[in-house]
């Protein structure tokens, strides 16, 4: 039995159990400290493994090499087989069919998010101008319960008709929005001058037309039609015949 130096040794019959208890405590302390050291090491190792797993799990990207800018002057090799020749012809046919999808004459592209209109001719941009597309506003009728959403439709359309000095036949929502009663006489629906000098109708009540509010061009403020400034509208009216494709996205 050993005792720590400087510590009083208990005398009598109680001395032996007390020493044993002290030794037990020391053993326990040692074991705890060892376990603590091991657990720290274990936690560190687990952490490193988890970090590695975290770093090594995800997405592995490889860059696609840019195309070679060198121009090959050697003639295309002859197809190796009859099947290769057939596939080559099929490829050329499909490429031509896809190229033909681009209109040859005038066509109109409208970006309704950024409120820009482009008039194209083949691959060339003839004109680019700010416009106003649908506001996206929702109008709710108080009593009738009708709801209108002022969106511009997306997709491919065609100019179906063209009008100079168009007259607007106001729909119900135009009266509801103003808090006015809906007229019974159709003549009371007509409004002169508010659509500008020209209108190009492309179906379902939608038109490209002029506006009294040119300062708002470039912002989505319309009820779904495309509003255009006076000068670009004149140009579009002049260059886009009936049948001109209109692409709206």
């Amino acid at each position, binding site marked *: 039995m050993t005792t720590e130096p400087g510590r009083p040794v208990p005398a009598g019959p109680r001395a032996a159990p007390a020493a044993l208890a002290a030794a037990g405590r020391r053993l326990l302390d040692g074991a705890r400290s060892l376990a603590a050291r091991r657990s720290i090491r274990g936690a560190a190792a687990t952490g490193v493994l988890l970090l590695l797993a975290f770093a*090594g799990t*995800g997405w592995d990207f*490889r860059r*696609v090499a840019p195309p070679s800018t060198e121009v090959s002057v050697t003639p295309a090799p002859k197809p190796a087989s009859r099947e290769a020749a057939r*596939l080559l012809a099929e*490829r050329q046919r499909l490429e031509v069919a*896809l190229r033909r999808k681009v209109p040859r004459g005038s066509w109109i592209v409208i970006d309704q998010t950024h409120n820009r209109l482009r008039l194209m001719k083949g691959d060339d941009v003839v004109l680019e101008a700010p416009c106003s597309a649908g506001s*996206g506003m929702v109008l709710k009728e108080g009593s009738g319960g009708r709801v209108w959403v002022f969106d511009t439709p997306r997709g491919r359309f065609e100019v179906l008709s063209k009008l100079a000095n168009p007259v607007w036949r106001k729909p119900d929502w135009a009266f509801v929005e103003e*808090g006015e009663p*809906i007229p019974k006489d159709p003549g009371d629906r007509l409004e002169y001058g508010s659509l500008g000098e020209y209108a190009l109708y492309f179906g379902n009540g939608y038109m490209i037309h002029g506006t009294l509010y040119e300062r708002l061009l470039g912002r989505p403020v319309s009820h779904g039609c495309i509003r255009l400034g006076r000068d670009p509208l004149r140009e579009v009216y002049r260059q886009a015949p009936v049948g001109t494709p209109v692409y709206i996205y």
Partner: protein
Amino acid sequence: MRARPLLLVPLAALVAALAATAPAASPKADDPETARLRGQVERLRRERDLASGRTFYLRLDAGQGRLALTLQGVALDDYRTESVEWGVPEVLFVDRAPGADWDAAAFSKGRLEPERERDRVEVVAPAPAPPGAAAAGPAPAETPSPSPPPVPKSAEELYSVPSPYRVVFAEGVSLEVRAKGHGGRNRSLFQRLADALGLRLSDLGTALGLGAKERVRLRVTLEAEDAASLYRSLPPDVGLVVVGLPSR
């Protein structure tokens, strides 16, 4: 001598029956050139089918470095890509092969992630004035003039654009768009931190096969302005066709 033609008839019938029941000869494997042409023709057929439909689609030409928003074969908006990358999920540094048929179908129903949210202004119409009310001329204090509806915000004011963002397609392919330079600076620091954390966790999840199955991710880097423009104007349920991607 006459027996010979009689014997030939059942012999011919036997040969014909054997020929009919014999398994079809396995098609000869394509030489590399034919295989390449076959792949190109398949891709063009898919593109033709997309161009015949009414849905918008993105056309990524990895070889030429162009990304175009297209409808019926007509490029409506065309962006130059700074770089194009091709990625697959990896688990513990081991890539998961996407399978040879990963691009066998056209990619469709692309949706933005994070989603582009649109707040619509709702206006309840004022009740129509009863007939003759205007003539009576009510006191101004009783009929406060309705305030005009607010001018809608422009797209730049309306949508803050995260960088990167993804267009996730139904067929297990996604397109990640990164903005070159200071993309995503129009979002607050908190938003950007949340975006980055969300993306990392989402990457971890998809790599481990949790949630939506994603086999291949294409990553393009665009000019910041182009990346923002595409995010703001991308139509819903967009398709994707990829051209000029070398086999990995």
